[in-house]
């Protein structure tokens, strides 16, 4: 066998290995999705889907699976997280890209990466010791609340969003900003009329990734959100999200029980939500 033939054989082997790895990943995802659909379908064949999605009563032992309180909880905590994380994350990104030197920017990026890789249980712990007592002091209520969940999520997704936003601003050609400044625009005018509009697509994607992380986070939220199931609770009162309820009720409704279908349905909703988010984030890029 010549060296060329040996190289070709190795390349074929590598191609087969890569294909096998990709196929295994796709098969794994398809299997998880199939299991969720199968379990959810078993419940949906017994119960009205719309009634479950809009229902406000969650009493799985009595066969009542109203999920609206959890959909509300997830939406509210994710919205709070995004409302806090986006302005702060964008500020960090602008400061990092426009003001700091390359060396300092690299240090900030390292710091953000470290914060982004901290396990979520640590954020939950921080939420228990700082956010919950702080909110208790501020509101005079219990501290455990949807608001606490949102604040903890905001701190969790802030580094992720800031890192992606830094990348978005970094990708803008310097010619654009230099041309703006050369035409006499101030730094602020350049930022708001050139830099941010040009980076808006990537920033939207950064926001979508951060939001998806917020929607999917479980343990940190469960530790501070309170877990009480009430219909559309006020932000300052205990509540529950889809993920926190999944974690709480999984031991009560193990695989093989009818109620497990309700948990599978919630998981499918989360999957659908994050998929739609990613499609929304990629919409502008498709047009390009």
């Amino acid at each position, binding site marked *: 066998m010549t060296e060329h033939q040996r190289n070709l054989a190795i390349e074929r082997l590598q191609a087969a290995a890569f294909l096998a790895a990709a196929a295994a990943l796709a098969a794994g995802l398809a299997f998880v999705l199939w299991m969720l659909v199968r379990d959810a379908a078993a419940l949906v064949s017994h119960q009205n889907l719309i009634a479950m999605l809009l229902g406000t009563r969650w009493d799985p032992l009595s066969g009542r699976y109203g999920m609206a309180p959890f959909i509300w909880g997830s939406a509210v905590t994710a919205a709070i997280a995004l409302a806090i994380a986006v302005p702060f994350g964008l500020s960090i990104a602008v400061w990092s890209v426009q003001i700091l030197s390359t060396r300092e920017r690299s240090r900030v990026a390292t710091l953000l990466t470290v914060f982004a890789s901290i396990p979520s249980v640590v954020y939950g712990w921080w939420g228990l010791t700082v956010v919950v007592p702080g909110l208790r002091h501020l509101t005079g209520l*219990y501290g455990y609340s949807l608001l606490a969940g949102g604040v903890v999520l905001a701190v969790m997704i802030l580094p992720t969003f800031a890192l992606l936003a830094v990348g978005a601003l970094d990708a803008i050609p310097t010619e654009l900003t230099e041309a703006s400044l050369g035409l006499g625009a101030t730094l602020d005018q350049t930022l708001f009329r050139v830099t941010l509009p040009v980076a808006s697509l990537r920033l939207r994607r950064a926001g979508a990734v951060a939001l998806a992380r917020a929607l999917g986070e479980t343990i940190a939220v469960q530790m501070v959100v309170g*877990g009480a199931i009430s219909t559309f609770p006020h932000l300052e009162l205990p509540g529950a999200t889809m993920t926190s309820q999944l974690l709480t009720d999984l031991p009560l409704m193990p695989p093989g029980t009818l109620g497990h279908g309700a948990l599978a349905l919630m998981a499918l909703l989360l999957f659908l939500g994050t998929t739609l988010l990613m499609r929304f984030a990629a919409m502008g890029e498709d047009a390009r």
Partner: protein
Amino acid sequence: MSWFYLLIGLWLAVLLPSNAVLGATRHIVISGATSVLPYLKAASVAFSRTHPDVAVAVTGGGSLAGLAALKRGRTDIAASDLSPEDFGFLSGRFRRIQLGRMPVVFVVNPDTGIGGITSAQLRRILSGEVANWAQVGGADRRVLLVERPRGSGARAAVDRRVNPPVDLPANAVVQLSNGAVLRTVAESPGAMGYIEGLVIPRDVRMIRVDGKDPRSNARSGWPYYTEPSLYVDTAWSRPVVRELVQFLATGRERMRFGIFPPTPNEGGGANDRASTQFGH
């Protein structure tokens, strides 16, 4: 290329079973209640020492998950502190072997100024009717209830006697483990919760219900308790599984983990009967 070999090495380390598992020819899986998990893990290690050919895997997941796994043939032994019949696991093939009793103890944050309450007061507190500790003779503090989820044995034990409303009151939060309950009660002014076992840290205060002290030796006086048990499927449980169950159900180590052996009146004889049926 060194990265390539490192990757292969990591794969092998993950995929190849350890010596202990390789040496074992018989494998047993226990799954279920998290409240008895520490004891089951410790006792299983002791069992494997005397049975080097047996590898025991102990996993949590909760009582009902253990029972469901047993029903589907995915575990050899289910540990549960919930009654299978109450949750639709009617199976004449399940054999129950009681591990013992675990007291369920009510704890409060010391700032509540509460040392004891009556059953009637407890019922009103758990249903949300009492919003301030001053209403039951305590300090002027807002009540925060720290509850356990519906799949918890402690919650079932309390609900069985108190029979509170299905929906938790607005002043309740849910925590998933004894440790989380204790931490929340310790850190939250006006908080009250309940746990299984008698290991009470100093930053929370245990309270008496109707004057009964759960630390008392008179276990018949415990107002609230769980009865963690092991379940096997008699249709296919192997002799080595029965041997392990017998070992677990009679281990003196249980007390150290807050599981007090059942007296004959409480079903202690059941273990003897089980051993007879198991042919020991």
